[in-house]
């Protein structure tokens, strides 16, 4: 078993390596055909990365500082979104009336771009709460909507099972509805994390603090330093990937019971 597993993960690794190589190759080709000083090739980016890693950014702020700043902001906002989105999603998925009644407030909020919130965030909040608001706005709705959708997929007979055992509403929700919706909730959390991370640049546009990967991108943007921007983008991407992998690991453990769907 173990060796088979290793073999599989080795193959996945190889496949990823191959597709990455192809990707970098295409990029190189593109940069040659375009040949714009604003479109760097992979090597320029690598150089910019090394400089950033060894010397810090133009203002001397180290990469770690930037990463820690952004990650902590996103995790706080995302955490808030999880804590608010899942329970609300359960409630609104089960009580469609509740959802129906606040739809005219909730739904419009969902579409308002994070950048548009910046002035209000500045006026109404301070410090970390501002970042959290903006990241929360991104992460909350995917979690909410997926939880609501997941609630609807429960087999009603399973709810009946819980009911005849005298389960109260809380138990029913936790042990049947929620357990059943968990795969979709996880999908929602992964989407939400992505969108939350996506809002980091918008959030860090608020400015004021000098660290953060989003801020790094904006800063390099002002200097028209596209290599530096791409370093920021890749870093954001890689950190996102790592968070995603963590999620997938957890999912793999939690959803062991699933039959894999194959054709």
């Amino acid at each position: 078993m173990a060796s088979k597993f290793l073999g599989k993960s080795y193959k996945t690794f190889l496949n990823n390596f191959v597709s990455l190589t192809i990707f970098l190759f295409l990029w190189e080709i593109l940069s040659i055909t375009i040949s714009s000083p604003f479109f760097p090739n992979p090597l320029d980016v690598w150089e910019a990365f090394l400089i950033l890693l060894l010397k810090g950014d133009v203002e001397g702020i180290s990469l770690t500082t930037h990463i820690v700043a952004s990650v902590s902001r996103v995790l706080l906002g995302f955490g808030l979104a999880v804590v608010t989105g899942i329970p609300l999603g359960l409630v609104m998925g089960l009580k469609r009336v509740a959802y129906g009644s606040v739809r005219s407030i909730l739904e419009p909020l969902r579409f308002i771009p994070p950048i548009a919130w910046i002035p209000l965030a500045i006026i109404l909040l301070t410090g970390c709460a501002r970042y959290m608001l903006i990241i929360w706005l991104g992460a909350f709705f995917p979690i909410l909507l997926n939880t609501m959708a997941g609630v609807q997929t429960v087999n009603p007979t399973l709810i009946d099972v819980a009911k005849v055992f005298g389960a109260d509403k809380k138990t029913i929700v936790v042990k049947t509805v929620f357990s059943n919706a968990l795969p979709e909730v996880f999908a929602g959390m992964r989407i939400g994390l992505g969108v939350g991370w996506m809002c980091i640049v918008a959030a860090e546009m608020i400015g004021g603090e000098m660290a953060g990967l989003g801020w790094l991108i904006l800063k390099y943007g002002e200097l028209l330093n596209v290599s530096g921007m791409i370093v920021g983008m890749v870093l954001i991407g890689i950190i996102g990937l790592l968070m995603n992998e963590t999620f997938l690991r957890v999912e793999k453990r939690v959803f062991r019971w699933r039959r894999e769907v194959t054709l």
Partner: protein
Amino acid sequence: EVKREAEKLTPVRIGYISTDIHHLAFFVAYYKGWYEEEGIKPVRMEYLYGMPEMMAFKAGELDAGYVGIVPAIIAKAKGANLVVVASANLEGSAIVAKPEIKNVFELDGKTVGTPGLGSIQDCMIRMVEERFNLRMNVKHYKFSDLPLLLGRGEIDAYIDWEPFCAEAVIKKIGHIIYTSHDILPNHQCCVFYVSGKLLKEKPEIAKKLVRVHVKAMRFIRENPEEAKKIFSEMTGKPLNVVDECWGRMVWDYHVNVKSIKIFVPFLIEQGKVSARDISDVDRFVESLVNTKLLAEVEKS
């Protein structure tokens, strides 16, 4: 007949920043229809700040435009083929502080906001620090958020371009304690540029553009009240805000090359442009600025 007239016009894509009073010459010329008088159909290309405009320029989407000298320097250093043919304004930035702060020396140890690393304002606040040996806590924000932050008491002062300093004064959030005139008199701020391609292939169009620019600049100097109204009408900035900042701009179309030669080394020193791209400052500035057309227009 009017239609046929319009068809004959040559379209020229002109970039500018949407509510930057430094680009007033464009607003006036456009409003007055002076481009059309020269047989040019101006295509408005509006940007939020310098970076996207320079990117779009590099992508070949602009023939000419208005932009801050610093973004122009950075873009040129990166190989963008732009040529500065005239000045759009001199000076035009200021330090706004909350009421308790009376002068620039009190900024020591205070939090001061700037509209970003790539702005001329960031350059200038560093010059102030150096000159008076102050230690400020400099922070970067989005240019239009600075008045909000001062109002929230989150920063003690900020340096910004107009009319964003005037906003704070009008809303009685802060007052001007130091202007860019005090920092470096008559320094170059925004410029009018054309693409090297246009200059080479259609010099007559470039010349017409310069002529319109000069005409607009003269108009601004001679009819300030009307120019203010035009700006206010076209951008929506209240007239009292425009009034408030008016005195802090110098409407001179002559490029202040000397000040550019001060900025370029400073930018290199700060790591904002790479010394690799600018080996010789004088040669660089020579290739950046070309006032030949301006001289011709002035003569005629």
